[in-house]
């Protein structure tokens, strides 16, 4: 039964007529499912096959509005089906359904051509939001606790809900525009019949694709609300260094070694950043 449930549907959202070994699916279904006076064995099994795919595709559809906007609705459903066929859920919760999507898009970039890099950026950004929503928060380190240790020996962890993303496109602003459009569309359709099938939904007005630019982003939460914050290159490099386990001194030195900016009072600037990041609760002790 499981192999029938997991097999992708046909283009018309029906169960495939052939079993995975080439036999007739009707014959195989007859072997273990009883028919009744209204439905054949195949049709009864098909209910589970369809419910599975509608459920998981709906979940990815909701979790990846940005990726969906980039590749288009129909192509997104084909991509999502291919992804879940290759990487079915291995978690008890649908929350984790997209955890290997980035890996899939790297392995099979043809699904997002000609926007491979943009799509990958968006998939990473949208997964980071899942993490930010409900990953753990470890006890915060305060500035006083940080100040007590010399920078050469001080190693700071970053909260498990925080993601550092180095992106090639301004997907943060693009996603905001997409969400605004979705909210507007929902308002427009509020009086109409709701259709739960994603591919039956109406055509939406297009949002301009994001321009190519280097964006360094922190995706995090504060007071249990989701935020994303753009960072300067040096600030991003320091946080990346801390995340990699470097001491504060080495993380700062490495970040500044690559900086082209000369007119900055780096001591004051770094103090200010650390103060802000501490206030946002990003620092914790390193996981053992």
């Amino acid at each position, binding site marked *: 039964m499981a192999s029938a449930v997991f097999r992708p549907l046909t283009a018309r959202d029906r169960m495939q007529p052939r079993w995975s070994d080439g036999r007739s699916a009707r014959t195989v279904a007859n072997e273990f499912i009883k028919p009744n006076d209204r439905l054949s064995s195949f049709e009864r099994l098909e209910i589970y096959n369809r419910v599975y795919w509608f459920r998981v595709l709906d979940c990815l559809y909701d979790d990846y509005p940005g990726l969906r906007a980039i590749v288009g609705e129909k192509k997104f459903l084909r991509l999502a089906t291919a992804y879940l066929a290759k990487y079915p859920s291995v978690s008890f919760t649908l929350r984790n359904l997209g955890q290997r999507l980035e890996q899939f898009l790297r392995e099979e970039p043809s699904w997002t051509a000609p926007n491979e890099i943009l799509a990958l950026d968006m998939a990473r950004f949208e997964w980071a939001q899942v993490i930010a929503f*409900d990953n*753990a928060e470890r006890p915060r380190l305060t500035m006083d606790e940080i100040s007590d240790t010399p920078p050469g020996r001080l190693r700071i962890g970053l909260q498990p809900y925080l993601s550092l993303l180095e992106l090639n496109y301004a997907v943060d602003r693009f996603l905001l525009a997409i969400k605004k459009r979705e909210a507007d569309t929902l308002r427009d359709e509020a009086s109409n019949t709701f259709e739960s099938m994603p591919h039956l939904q109406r055509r939406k007005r297009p949002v301009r694709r994001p321009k190519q630019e280097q964006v360094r982003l922190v995706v995090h939460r504060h007071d249990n609300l989701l935020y994303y914050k753009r960072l300067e290159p040096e600030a991003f490099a320091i946080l990346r260094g801390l995340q990699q386990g470097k001491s504060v001194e080495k993380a700062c030195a490495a970040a500044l070694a690559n900086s082209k900016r000369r007119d900055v009072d780096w001591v004051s600037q770094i103090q200010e950043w650390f103060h802000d990041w501490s206030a946002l609760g990003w620092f914790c002790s390193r996981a053992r």
Partner: protein
Amino acid sequence: MPANAFNNFNDYGIGIGLRVPHYRHILEKKPVVDWFEIISENFMVDGGRPLQVLDQILEQYRVVQHGVAMYLGSADRLSRDHLKKVKRLVKRTNTPWLSDHLCWGSVDGRYTHDLLPMPYTFAAAKTTAANIREASDYLEVPICVENVSSYAEFHASEMTEWEFLSEVVERANCGILLDVNNIYVSSQNHNFDPYDYLNNVPHYRVGQIHIAGHSKFEKYILDTHDHPVLDPVWKLYAHAIKLVGRTATLLEWDDRIPTFAEVHREALKANQFVEDQFQTAAA
């Protein structure tokens, strides 16, 4: 006084499922509700808003855990990692009992996220009962197993669904979460009399009842939880109360969720059937 040995919480009355669209209303208005049922897996997370909301709810209300992914009927051993997460939540909620389904849903580490029906065999009953005992021992909280709605039956089955349910709960020595909507849905899909089902399960093990709405299609009925409770299900509920006594009852409404007030009003209709039965018995 408990109506039966597995029903020590018959003062729980009529509860409703805690759902995201109602969070703000509940936290701001603090409506009077007997109890909330939570989907355990929605709160088996490490942090963030879900747990913040849950903690605020726990300050005001009684909460009972209902799981959808323990897969007690699975041929695989129960996931110890999953049980640990459930137990962590049990400690947080102090749930007086918890429930999950008489079904399977994962195989070889892959999850269907569905409540799949089982072949009603003695071997499956034995395996399932062992799983329930293991879960109950580990979690240190009474377990009620819920009958699922189904759309397929297996040639391999050796008994009816209600015989299978009875066999499992007797072997596991656990309670039953009797979903009367699921009984109705399955009775229509499999051509059996739902009253035969109700009459032939061990009533003294029923610790909780579920009611819900469903959707009728041309050739089958789907358990959609997106409508008010339909009349045939209310009639079954009335019969169930007559058989099992005053029992904690919960309305499930999971899709096309209306306002909190509408859901609560629908749930409280159950009181009428409970009181009718109570007065009849007293007379």
